[in-house]
C-alpha cells in the first residue's frame, strides 16, 4: 500500500489534465457539493462536510481540513457517462429524401476523482443497462471505456446512507483504478488496475507505514460504525414482496405525500429513463434526435394512444419503487438501489424508501 501526501493531490490532478483527462470531482456550487470539472485541488470542498436527513441538506465547516469529509450530493457520475442531453442521430434533407447518420461519440476522457463505493456500484448497475443488454448505448460505452475512476473510501456516513443494506459499501473493493483513504497529512492508496499503478508511479509517494495503515483502517471503520447506526432496509425477498403487493394500502399513503416532482429520479445514480425528441432547424433541413433525461414521474411518460396509463401519483410512485427495488432484479439481475440515500435527502417532502418498504413488509 502506498501513501500519497496531501500536497501531491495537485500533482495528481495536473498529471491527469496533462494526459488529456477532464478531471471531475466534488466542488461547491449553490451551497451543495456537486460534481464538476476542476482545475486543481483548490476547487475541492476542503474542510467542508454535509448534514443530510430526509428533505434536508446543508453544508457546514469541519473542524479539520479534510478534502473528502462528506458523502454524496445531488449529482452522481451518471451525468457524465449518460449525459442529461445528447444527440443520438441526425437527419439531413437530400435531393429527394433524407440522409440519416449517427454521430461518432466524442472522445472525451473523464477522470472521476472522489468516487464512493456506492457510486462504483451504481456505475456497475448502469453498465448492465447500457452495455450488457441486446443493444449498447454508444455514448455510454465510449465514455465508460475512457473513464478513470479514483475512488475514495468513506470515513463517515450521513443519516440517509444505507449502503450496507444493499451490500455496496462503505469500503471500495473493486471497480476502481485507485482508491484513497484520507488520514492526517494525506491518503493511503490502493491500486486497482494497471492504469492506476502507472498513474501512481508518476507521483511522489512513499510506502504506507503501519501507523498510516492503522489510521486508514480506523477512518474507514468510522464510516462502518456510523452507517451501522442508521435505519437500514431489509431486502429479504424484496422482489416478491413488492410485486406481490401492488394493491397495498401504503401506495395510497405515499401518494398523499409525493408531489411527483421527479427529484428522486434526477438524483438517483441508476435511474436511466429518457426521451428522444426532434430538434429541427428553421428550414427543416437538418434534424437532430436529442435524448434528454425523463422520469417515470412525469405525467405523460406512459402516454399511449390517447390516454395516460399511469394517470395518478399512486401508480407512478409504485412504478418507480417497484422498478428500483423489484423489477430491476428481473431485468438486470441486481437491485437498482445502491443505498446512497440521495432520494431521501432530495425529496422535498422527505419520503424515505426505507420506511415505505418497511411499511409494506410490516403488514
Amino acid at each position, binding site marked *: 500500500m502506498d501513501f500519497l501526501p496531501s500536497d501531491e493531490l495537485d500533482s495528481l490532478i495536473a498529471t491527469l489534465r496533462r494526459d488529456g483527462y477532464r478531471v471531475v470531482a466534488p466542488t461547491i456550487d449553490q451551497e451543495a457539493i456537486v460534481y464538476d470539472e476542476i482545475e486543481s485541488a483548490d476547487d475541492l470542498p476542503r474542510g467542508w462536510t454535509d448534514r443530510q436527513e430526509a428533505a434536508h441538506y446543508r453544508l457546514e465547516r469541519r473542524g479539520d481540513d479534510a478534502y473528502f469529509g462528506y458523502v454524496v450530493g445531488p449529482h452522481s457520475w451518471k451525468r457524465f457517462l449518460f449525459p442529461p442531453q445528447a444527440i443520438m442521430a441526425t437527419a439531413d434533407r437530400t435531393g429527394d429524401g433524407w440522409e440519416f447518420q449517427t454521430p461518432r461519440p466524442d472522445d472525451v476522457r473523464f477522470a472521476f476523482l472522489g468516487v464512493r463505493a456506492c457510486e462504483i456500484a451504481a456505475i456497475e448497475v448502469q453498465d448492465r443497462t447500457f452495455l450488457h443488454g441486446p443493444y449498447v448505448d454508444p455514448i455510454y460505452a465510449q465514455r465508460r471505456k475512457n473513464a478513470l475512476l479514483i475512488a475514495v473510501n468513506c470515513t463517515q456516513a450521513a443519516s440517509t446512507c444505507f449502503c450496507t443494506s444493499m451490500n455496496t459499501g462503505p469500503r471500495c473493493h473493486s471497480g476502481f483504478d485507485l482508491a484513497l483513504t484520507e488520514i492526517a497529512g494525506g491518503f493511503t492508496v490502493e491500486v486497482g488496475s494497471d492504469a492506476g499503478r502507472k498513474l501512481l508511479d508518476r507521483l511522489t509517494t512513499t510506502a504506507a507505514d503501519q501507523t498510516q495503515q492503522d489510521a486508514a483502517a480506523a477512518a474507514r471503520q468510522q464510516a462502518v460504525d456510523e452507517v451501522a447506526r442508521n435505519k437500514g432496509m431489509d431486502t429479504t425477498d424484496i422482489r416478491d414482496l413488492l410485486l406481490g403487493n401492488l394493491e397495498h394500502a401504503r401506495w395510497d399513503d405515499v401518494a398523499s405525500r409525493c408531489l411527483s416532482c421527479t427529484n428522486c429520479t434526477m438524483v438517483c445514480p441508476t435511474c436511466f429513463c429518457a426521451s428522444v425528441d426532434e430538434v429541427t432547424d428553421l428550414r427543416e433541413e437538418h434534424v437532430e434526435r436529442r435524448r434528454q433525461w425523463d422520469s417515470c414521474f412525469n405525467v*405523460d411518460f406512459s*402516454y*399511449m*394512444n*390517447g*390516454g395516460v396509463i399511469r394517470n395518478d401519483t399512486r401508480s407512478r410512485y409504485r412504478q418507480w419503487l417497484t422498478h428500483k427495488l423489484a423489477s430491476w432484479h428481473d431485468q438486470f439481475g441486481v437491485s437498482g438501489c445502491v443505498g446512497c440515500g440521495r432520494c431521501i435527502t432530495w425529496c422535498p417532502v422527505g419520503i424515505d424508501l426505507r420506511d415505505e418498504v418497511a411499511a409494506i413488509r410490516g403488514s
Partner: protein
Amino acid sequence: MNSSATTSVSQLLRDAGFFSDLDDADLAKVAGIAAVEDRAAGEVIFKEGGRNNNLYFVIAGAAALEMHVPRRGTTRILTVGPGQLLAWSALLGDATMTATAVSQQDLQMVAIPADDLKTLCDSDHDIGYSVMQQTAKSLSRRLLATRLQLLDLFTETDSTKYDG
C-alpha cells in the same frame, strides 16, 4: 316420445354441452318433454314482442337475433350458435320475446315447452336446480359478451399531441 327418440334427444343435448350435471335418468326426463326442431336458413323462429312458449337449445347451425328501433330499422345484435340458448324469456319472463330470431344457416335445436319444463322443475327440484343453473350460466356468458360489445373496444381514440 318413444324411448329411442328420447335417447337421441338426450345425446344431442349432452353432445352440445347442456345439462352436464344431470345423470342419464334425469336427462331422459328432460328429453322426454323435448323435441328436435330443424329450420332452414332464413326462417323466423320467433318475433320480438310476440309470444313464444318454447325454450330452445341450439345444437347446430346459427340463429341471428334482431331488434327493431323505430326510424333506425332492424339491427342484428347477436348471432347465437351451438351450445347456447334462445328464448330464455319463455322460462324466466312472461314468454314475450325480446328479440326476433332468424335462422342463419340450417339450424337444429332442441325445443322444450316452457310450461312443461316448469312443471317438471317444480316436481323434481334436482332437475329444477340444474335447469336454472344451466340457464343462469348461459345468461351470464351472454351478459359478459354483451358488455364487451358495449365497451366498444375497437373504437379509435382521439389522439392529440404525441407520437404513435
